[in-house]
């Protein structure tokens, strides 16, 4: 409100009649001493009275101060509320995720059927990964390079079991270095007498996000006398019962398995 009045005064200042009123306005705020009713306090030759100059400078300084304070206040407020806004967005997202998952959880009979399908797929994957063991001698001979042409049939058979973006998952998960000395036998991959084999776990439950997790273990087939077979490597993946494929594949080796591993270079 005050500012409006000052603005009006500014416009009216052009009219000589209102001269005294114009001078009275800043007088109330910044420069009480400027109430020279006529403005005749000017020393001849000087541009303005000292009081007017001081008043002007003070008002200008006050304006600058207001600008700075205003800028400071709005800046501080922004950072505080941004944090909270982020928290609100994240909470809403979590609520939405939980609600969507609750709705998407299958009925028990559908889940049971999916568990059987997932197990079938998991066993096929174990069988195909076991096929790769047959290539170990050639990988060892070529310094860790997988013969892509020889591996192609297995990779092609593995493809439908995985989501399209699984990348290197279709490669051999683990090869045992000692397998390089195993005789090729009758050229049938499944008759290859490897020192380890992949075994698929049977899934029994559904995760909270509606997927079915399956773990495969690579275990020794010829453990030392009196010892249980060691786990050399493992793989884990989530089976999507709608898409009927595995994704989120994670593979790893144990320290024992890593020491006995035949390295396969990335293609």
């Amino acid at each position, binding site marked *: 409100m005050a*500012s409006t009045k000052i603005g009006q005064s*500014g416009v009216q200042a052009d009219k000589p009649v209102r001269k005294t009123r114009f001078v009275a306005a*800043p007088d109330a705020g910044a420069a009480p001493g400027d109430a020279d009713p006529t*403005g005749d306090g000017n020393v001849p030759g000087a541009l303005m009275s000292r009081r007017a100059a001081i008043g*002007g400078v003070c008002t200008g300084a006050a304006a600058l101060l207001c600008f700075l304070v*205003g800028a400071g206040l709005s800046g501080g407020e922004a950072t505080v509320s941004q944090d909270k806004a982020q928290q*609100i967005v994240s909470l809403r997202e*979590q609520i939405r995720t939980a609600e969507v998952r609750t709705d998407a959880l299958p009925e028990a009979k559908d889940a049971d059927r999916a568990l059987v399908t997932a197990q079938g797929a998991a066993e096929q994957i174990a069988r195909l990964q076991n096929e790769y063991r047959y290539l170990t001698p050639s990988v060892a001979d070529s310094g860790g390079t997988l013969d892509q042409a020889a591996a192609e049939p297995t990779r092609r058979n593995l493809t439908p079991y995985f989501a399209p973006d699984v990348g290197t998952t279709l490669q051999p998960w683990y090869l045992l270095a000692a397998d390089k000395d195993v005789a090729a036998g009758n050229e049938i991959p499944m008759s290859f007498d490897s020192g380890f084999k992949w075994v698929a776990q049977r899934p029994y439950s559904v995760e909270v996000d509606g997927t079915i997790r399956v773990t495969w273990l690579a275990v020794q087939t010829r453990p030392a006398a009196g010892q249980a077979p060691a*786990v050399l490597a493992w793989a884990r993946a989530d089976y999507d019962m709608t898409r009927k494929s595995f994704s989120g594949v994670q593979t790893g080796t144990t320290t024992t398995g890593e020491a006995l591993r035949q390295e396969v270079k990335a293609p």
Partner: protein
Amino acid sequence: MIEDVKDWVRARAGKVLVCSTGTLLALSLLSLAPALLADGSADADAKADQLIVQLQGKQEDAQAALETKHARLLAALPGMDAERADRDRAAARSVLLSLTDSSAASRTVKETQAALDARYGFLGTSSRALTEFIPEWMAATGAGKGAGTAYQLADFDVDVAAVKGLDYSYIGVARLDPVSADGKSTAKSEYVVFTFATGQDGTVASFEAYRASGRTRDQLAAQRPPASASPVDTASPGPSHSG
């Protein structure tokens, strides 16, 4: 004519100055007003806090509804007893912690093996957990040299792997994060793969643990999302309900 204007301005220089700076002050007050009103920012903050509390309540409700429905689904699935699986997980968790606690103990490998052998009947002399895991774990974590690294179980993910009558067997992967008094441990997280079986009465019948190789550990650490990325998934640090 121009001279007249000049004279006029000169005569009123003081007023022109005061007038223009006054206008500036008015404008700056106008710009300051919203910022001051947002003192109102305190008000908006209070409202945001209120909303956050409301949303937290809703989030907990939604999560609880999901967990209830999930537990009902698991209970309805044939083939395994979900409650028993939960009890077995708790038992295995305590065995795993006993094994991994050796990293911060001052005992030698032999003393640790003897103590664990005496405590757990199922860890025989041919047990890989005793003969391979313990010596390697203790060597890798600096145990027995005075300042071994202590680890806390950060992730314990177990699935039922087979059910044969009343005998259950499980596969699990655990992540152990280093802890230190000042919270600035330089050690890396460790991963342990373990298998165990429980008998009819729910007692642990066998337990084997394998430390993940350094290569795997680095891979898994790289795949791990930052802690704040998925609060829903990290909300339940306890044993997973899977399996």
